[in-house]
């Protein structure tokens, strides 16, 4: 797989997404659900939702996070907590629906959203387990990274020798956290990228799907990684903006706008990645 095929694959994906709405719809649904969840979270510190959530937020983060502007500052954190279960129960399934729609479009079969949704539901448990595995790896990485951050916080570059090296390591761990997390999420997406296509298109159960996933991954590791990496670069400007918004506290509402933007960009990235990987899976399957 050369550079040409990577960019060709991404270009074809764009065409597929814009010319075949059944593939795009599940991603639009994902974005809508996430935006709706964000809207609900926005109202969590306010009446009447605060009746239920105030004790939780106060206990976890402190009373000030129920009040302006800290209630806005805590939104990204709350949204991040919701993202886990949302990904496991809803997002991964809807990605499966999109992959299924792609296969149906490819086979010239009817691909109405409701029909594809129903058809994909029979794979729900396997998709869920596949998503859970990926999620657990991410969780394990987060724990390790948390430990690294704690170590970096207590690290004193002035102690002992190799001052510059220690300073660089410390700054990379602390300041580079969002980028390292992004890089890791690219790696995980690439690592488990063919699991959902294998379950939905290949009609495989979770463990055979995992085997199939790693087989394809081993046959085209660079292609898979690059197909995941290149679209994800779109998220870097969002990260830069979010970093800037944290520094400036003059407009707390800006963080909500950036969160909305990051949801849209992330879903668009997922749409490109999973459609390209599913197309590649289909090609492989048809080839064999």
């Amino acid at each position, binding site marked *: 797989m050369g550079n040409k095929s990577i960019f060709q694959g991404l270009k074809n994906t764009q065409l597929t997404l814009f010319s075949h*709405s059944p593939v795009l*719809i599940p991603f*639009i*649904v994902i974005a*809508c659900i996430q*935006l*709706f969840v964000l*809207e*609900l979270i926005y*109202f969590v*510190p*306010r*009446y*009447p*939702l605060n009746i239920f959530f105030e004790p939780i937020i106060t206990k976890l983060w402190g009373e000030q996070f129920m*009040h*302006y*502007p800290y209630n806005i500052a805590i939104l990204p954190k709350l949204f991040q907590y919701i993202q886990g279960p949302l990904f496991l129960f809803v997002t991964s399934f809807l990605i499966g629906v999109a992959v299924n729609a792609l296969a149906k479009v490819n086979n010239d079969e009817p691909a109405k*959203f409701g029909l594809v949704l129903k058809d994909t539901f029979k794979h729900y448990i396997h998709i869920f387990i596949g998503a859970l595995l990926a999620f657990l790896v991410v969780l394990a990485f987060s724990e390790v990274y948390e430990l690294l951050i704690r170590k970096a916080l207590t690290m004193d570059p002035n102690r002992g020798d190799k001052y510059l090296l220690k300073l660089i390591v410390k700054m990379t761990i602390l300041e580079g956290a969002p980028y390292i997390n992004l890089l890791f999420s690219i790696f995980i997406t690439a690592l488990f990228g063919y699991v959902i296509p294998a379950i939905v298109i290949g009609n495989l159960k979770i463990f055979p799907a995992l085997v199939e996933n790693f087989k394809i991954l081993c046959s085209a590791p660079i292609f898979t990684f690059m197909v995941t990496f290149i679209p994800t670069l779109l998220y870097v400007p969002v990260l830069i903006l979010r970093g800037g918004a944290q520094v400036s506290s*003059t407009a*707390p509402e800006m963080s909500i706008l950036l969160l909305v933007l990051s949801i849209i960009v992330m879903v668009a990235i997922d749409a490109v990645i999973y459609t390209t990987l599913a197309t590649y899976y289909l090609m492989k399957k048809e080839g064999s």
Partner: protein
Amino acid sequence: MKKFIIGFLVLSIGVFVLFTFLGKDKGHDAEKVLWGINQEFNTIANDPAATPENAFVELSKKYENFVQRFPDADVTPGAYIIWARLMVIKEDYDRAKSILEKVLSKYPENKTAQLEALLEVGKVQTIQKDELGVLDTYQRVIRNFPKSEVGLKTPLLVAQYYLEKKQNNLMEKAFDDAITHYQALIADNKGEKVGFYALQYLAVCHIAQKNWDGALSAYEASLLDYADLNVWTPQSLLKLLRAYNTIYVTHKKSIDGPVDVYQKFIDDNPDHAFNPILERVIKTLQELKADGVITPDVTVQSLEKAVNAMAQETEEKLEKKIEQQDFKSTPATVED
């Protein structure tokens, strides 16, 4: 797809309108507006000299409009207080005091705001060098908020005021009043944080009056009667031990009192996290006696040196021990 998008938009807008309507007048809007005004206040407070006169007037107007628009919001008493601070920066002290008096008259139920406003009044009076006004504010704090952190300390501040003025008779009377005040608080709040802190201040009053027995008995009571209260920190224990040892050994020329008290603490509280430390203190005191440090001629300096050396050595061990036993020792927060 169109249907879905329209449905999603209707749902989102519906939820937004519903929650916005339900949350109306519940304080969120007031918080948001006040935050914006306070940001302007912070800018002025950071560089008052560079602030033109009309900026003060405009911001003052904003606070006035705010308190009129949200008279019952939780944040409104706070808005009055910051508005008063703005007037202090503008050096319009009388206006500042009149704004603060509004907090006192309009929000009698809000004890925290009342106390904060009263303290701000005291600050303004201090700037104005209105000494009688300050003393009057002290008395208002003692009368209205006797159990607050500031209220507990205030009787001592009154005495300190007369001490600085070298008005010995009034100072003595202030200490007598403080002792009566603290004794009443101790009697009414036995086993509670207020009682504990009142004992600490009572000891200070006795020390100021050179009533060593009174001071020692206050320290003994705080250690023995409040062993389990969640007020102790390693620092507060060491402070008490240092004071008690120093007073006892210097004025009684003996170690028997501290050793008996610490031993009684250990016997009464066999599982207490402080026991290993108290055992060590007993041992060290006995060693100091055996080494001839504690003699009838002992001086405060030599004793303090020995006690400090002991404290320094034990401080780390004490903290470690507390950490291991998960002995919760939150800093003091008194009622109100």
